[in-house]
C-alpha cells in the first residue's frame, strides 16, 4: 500500500509540474494578485496530490488539475466576490451586449497593442475571462474546456462567442477613451 502510494506520488510530480507555470499564469489572471495566485496554486497542488488516487490514468490530467484550481478559486474569498458581483451564468445575457462595430482604428489597435488587450481581458467578467484564456492561451479544445468548467459543449461555444464580443467591445471603449 505504501509502495503504491509512493509510485502514485512520483507519477503525480511528473504529470503535474509541466503545468506549473501555466497554472500560475491562469491563477494570476483569476485573482489579479500574485500572492493570492501562489496560495491558489499551492492549494491546487495539495488537493490534487491528496485526490490523485481518484484520477483515472489515461484521462485528461490537464483538464482535471485546471478544474481543481478553478473550483478552489470559486470557493476563495476573491472568487466568491468575483462571482457574487457578476453572475457566473451569463448565458441569458446575449441581448444586453451591444453590437460590435469594427473600425480601421480599432482593428489596428487590437493588432498592435498587447497592453490594451491585457487591460480589456482584466476587465472582463471572470466567466468570460477564464473561457477565453483556456481557449486562446491554454489552447484547450472545446471538449477540454467543457470538462474543466463543467459546462456542456454548446455552452462553451456560446460563452466563447460572447466573451470575444465583450473583449472587442472593451477594446472599442478603451480606444474611444484614448481618442478623447
Amino acid at each position, binding site marked *: 500500500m505504501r509502495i503504491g502510494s509512493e509510485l502514485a*506520488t512520483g507519477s503525480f510530480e511528473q504529470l503535474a509540474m509541466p503545468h506549473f507555470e501555466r497554472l500560475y499564469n491562469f491563477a*494570476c489572471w483569476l485573482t489579479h494578485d500574485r500572492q493570492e495566485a501562489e496560495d491558489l496554486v499551492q492549494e491546487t497542488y*495539495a488537493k490534487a496530490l491528496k485526490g490523485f488516487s481518484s484520477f483515472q490514468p489515461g484521462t485528461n490530467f490537464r483538464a482535471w488539475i485546471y478544474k481543481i484550481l478553478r473550483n478552489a478559486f470559486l470557493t476563495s474569498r476573491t472568487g466568491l466576490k468575483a462571482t457574487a458581483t457578476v453572475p457566473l451564468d451569463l448565458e441569458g445575457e446575449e441581448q444586453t451586449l451591444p453590437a460590435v462595430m469594427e473600425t480601421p482604428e480599432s482593428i489596428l489597435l487590437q493588432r498592435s497593442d498587447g497592453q490594451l488587450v491585457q487591460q480589456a481581458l482584466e476587465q472582463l467578467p471572470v466567466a468570460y475571462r477564464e473561457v477565453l484564456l483556456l481557449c486562446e492561451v491554454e489552447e484547450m*479544445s472545446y471538449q477540454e474546456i467543457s470538462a474543466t468548467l463543467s459546462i456542456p459543449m454548446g455552452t462553451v461555444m456560446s460563452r*466563447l462567442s460572447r466573451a470575444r464580443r465583450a473583449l472587442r467591445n472593451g477594446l472599442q471603449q478603451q480606444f474611444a477613451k484614448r481618442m478623447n
Partner: protein
Amino acid sequence: MVCESWTEKLDTYLDGELPEVEMRTFDAHVRSCTFCSADALSRVQMKRTIQVAGKRFVPSADFRRRMEQSITPKPKRSFRLGWMFAAAAAVILVVGALTSTYVGNRSGRDLAYRDRVFSEIADLHVATLASSSPVDVISTDRHTVKPWFQGKIPFAFNLPELQNSEFSLLGGRMTYLDQTPGAHLIYDVRKHHISVFVFQERTLSLKLPAGVDENYPSPKQLPFNMETWSQGGIRYFVIGDASAADIDSLAKLFKAAS
C-alpha cells in the same frame, strides 16, 4: 450583413472545432470570399494578440522550488538504517564541533564572495538593459557576433545554434567583472531579455566557491533567475527575469555548444 451564416461560425472554424466536412466547405468559402477572408485574418490576429497578452505572469524560481519540494516524495528509511544514521550523526556532531569554527569562517567567506559576484552580474545585466545602446554588435547571427569579440577578449567561446528554439540573439558587447574582460550576450525569449556573461575562469580574481553551480541564490537575495557553471576553463552566467525553465534551456544550449 454579407455572409452572415458563415460569419456566425467563423470563430469555431478558426478554433478548428467544426466537423471535418464542414471545415473543408469553410476552407473553400474563405478562399473565395474577400469579406470572409479579411474577417478571418482580423480574427486570427486578435487570437494571436490574446495568446501573447495572456501569457503574462511567470512564477518566481523560489516558488517553483517550494512547490517541487512540497510534492516530491520524501525518502523513507528502514528501522536498521535509522540506527546507522543515528550513529553517523553522532560521529558527525563530534567532528563538526571540532571543525565548526574553521568551516564556519570559510563558508561565510565563500558565501560573501558568491554574493558579491552574483550582485555584480545582476548590476551589469540591469545597467546594460537600461542603456540606450545595450549592444555594440547588433546581429541575430552568431557567425557575426562571435568574430566581433576577436582581439577584444583574451579567449574564445562558442555560441549555440538557436534554430528550433524560442531564443533569439540580439547582439553582444564587451564587459568587465572585477577588472577582467569578458563577453556579454543578450538573448530574447518571449519579450524577456536574458544576459549571458562569459569570462575566463582563471583570470577572475573573484573565485567562486566549489558547489556554487548547484546552489543558486534565492530570489530574495537576487531578484532574477540565474544559472552559472564552469566548462573548459570558461565561467558562464545566464541571468534574466525570464522563467527558471527558460534560463535553464538557454544554459543547456550553451553547455551543448561548448
